[in-house]
């Protein structure tokens, strides 16, 4: 896990005025820059905005886009919506477990991939669906997952 320096956090905070309206924007920046919202970040933000830590924690735990634990470089979202569920979306999860050794909510040891379970990605015709870094993969054959992840690993971060 990457150590996040206080200066990095301060630099980020200083790009925003001390106004409660920027709370969420700062957290989103942290999420983007560090891959999660670190505890040191929330502490510093609490001081910066003079808002109780508890209030910030409530926000950070409310939004699914924010995570309090590190997330991998690549985010895999597997659909468990109704259609994908019926079309054996769970087989995709098994396939990912075989390929990467992680389950929902977990991250690979090398910090490359995180896995999240989501509800309907809006592409039911392609069920079962998975999205990696914003790219949709439909009608997934669990055996092919190895190759998909190897290719993504080789390409690096897609933003």
């Amino acid at each position, binding site marked *: 896990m990457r150590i996040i320096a206080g200066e990095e956090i301060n630099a980020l905070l200083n790009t925003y005025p001390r106004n409660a309206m920027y709370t969420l924007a700062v957290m989103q920046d942290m999420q983007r820059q560090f891959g999660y919202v670190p505890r040191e970040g929330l502490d510093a933000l609490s001081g910066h905005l003079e808002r109780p*830590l*508890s209030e910030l924690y409530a926000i950070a*735990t*409310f939004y699914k886009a924010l995570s309090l634990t590190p997330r991998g470089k690549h985010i895999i979202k597997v659909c468990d919506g109704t259609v994908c569920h019926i079309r054996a979306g769970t087989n995709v999860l098994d396939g990912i477990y075989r390929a990467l050794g992680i389950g929902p909510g977990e991250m690979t040891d090398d910090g490359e991939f995180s896995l999240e379970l989501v509800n309907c990605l809006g592409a039911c015709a392609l069920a079962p669906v998975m999205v990696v870094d914003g790219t949709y993969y439909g009608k997934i054959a669990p055996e092919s997952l190895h190759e998909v992840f190897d290719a993504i690993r080789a390409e690096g971060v897609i933003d």
Partner: protein
Amino acid sequence: MIVTIDGKEVSCERGEYLLDIATRAGIRIASLCHHEGLQGQGCCRLCTVEVETGRGDTGRGEGAQSGSFSDKKPRREIVAACIYPVEAECVVYTDSERVRRNRGILLALLRASAPASEEIAELCREFGAPDGARYEVQSGDGKCILCGLCAKACQTLGTGAISSVGRGTAKKISTPYDEPATVCVGCGSCAAVCPTGAIEVAEDGDERTIWNKTLTLTRCSRCGAVTGTAFEHYRASVHAGTEPPDLCPDCRRKAMTDTMAKTFGV
């Protein structure tokens, strides 16, 4: 302005909340998430009542007969009394058939989500709540109805040690990272405002434990009653420059009376 609640005429100011008016008139309306010092939660809906407005204007019966939806037509609607400001003269029913049915369902649902709460069980007995498979208790030890009064009290007092955490069915009230909060002064206000007895406070000798934090208690130098926690008085002295109290409110009053009696020689 006059509102009629269960047949009783009560005078009030425009904009006053119905629940406050009823309470003043001695009419009991069930409530949980209402606290006079922390208005506006409006989330338990237990204070459901039926309000009839626009009756005074219907003498000629125009609205009713033409079938038009003019706002002159009397309307009976279900509202939450604690957040319903009275804007016009109206007739209120706190125990009509419809209110009883709605309130019963609400109580049964609240009981199912907070089965261990004595307070809710008591309300069910007092106001009546249906039984049935729909209201079956899922797990046995919950007391919290997530009304948020505790967090609001803590925040209003300037501490902000607790808040709602998470979302959906996993939502709960807690301290950041579920750890003892550094800022918690152990005043116990959260537990005092909680309508369902969900927050545990344990006192043992000179210590109080709340939200996994243990604090030292201070006592009245005369009668030994608890006057708060040392950290609470310390924070108050830092923020407001107050002295830690030596006496409890009762003894302070007595001391004052004694001084007066001596001064005036009675």
